[in-house]
């Protein structure tokens, strides 16, 4: 059965700290791994990773995929209170000509001033 596991489930840090969120997966016909940020509104797309070892970066956020270890990490440096959210990892097993997304339960990040 395809599954995605995220850790930790929740994290509390202070502004300025650096955090690392983990995502591990077991899927057949892996195609891509995506990170989303979910606040009290729509989950917003952060990154899509398909190749191992290539870091994707956007401002203070970065992510990298390790296909050998079947995992990915999302790093946030110099955290701000606006980074408080649930971070969702989703993996796309490719089946039937379409990329179905399997989501993890998310990591709830709270950044305190």
């Amino acid at each position: 059965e395809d599954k995605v596991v995220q850790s930790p489930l929740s994290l509390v840090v202070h502004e300025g700290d650096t955090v690392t969120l983990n995502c591990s997966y077991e899927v057949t016909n892996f195609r891509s791994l995506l990170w989303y940020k979910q606040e009290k509104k729509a989950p917003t797309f952060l990154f899509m990773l398909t190749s191992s070892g290539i870091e994707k970066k956007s401002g203070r956020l970065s992510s990298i995929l390790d296909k050998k270890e079947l995992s990915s990490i999302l790093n946030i440096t110099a955290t701000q209170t606006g980074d408080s959210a649930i971070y969702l990892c989703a993996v796309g097993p490719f089946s039937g000509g379409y990329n179905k997304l399997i989501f993890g339960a998310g990591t709830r990040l709270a950044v305190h001033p």
Partner: protein
Amino acid sequence: EAGVVQSPRYKIIEKKQPVAFWCNPISGHNTLYWYRQNLGQGPELLIRYENEEAVDDSQLPKDRFSAERLKGVDSTLKIQPAELGDSAVYLCASSLDRRTADIQYFGAGTRLSVL
């Protein structure tokens, strides 16, 4: 460009009542998804549409849930009758087409509370 629009944002109903959710995807997006997100969990796919055709509804509880996407644009998801366990956030997402379905864009969701 407008994102995925869902309504209502919140809905409170008593069990056994019917309820409907509406979704308008990003203009030009052929693929539309309905997900259910229970508290503390990630979204789980209920149904996927390619244009007006439901091509993956294997996770949709068909005894009480129904969905339609007339004309391949807007979509509605209905529950009749609702049960206590249906309380969740119902998310709609869209993507350009099956070849680029990797990136799905989500609406803000409808939070359903069944009392």
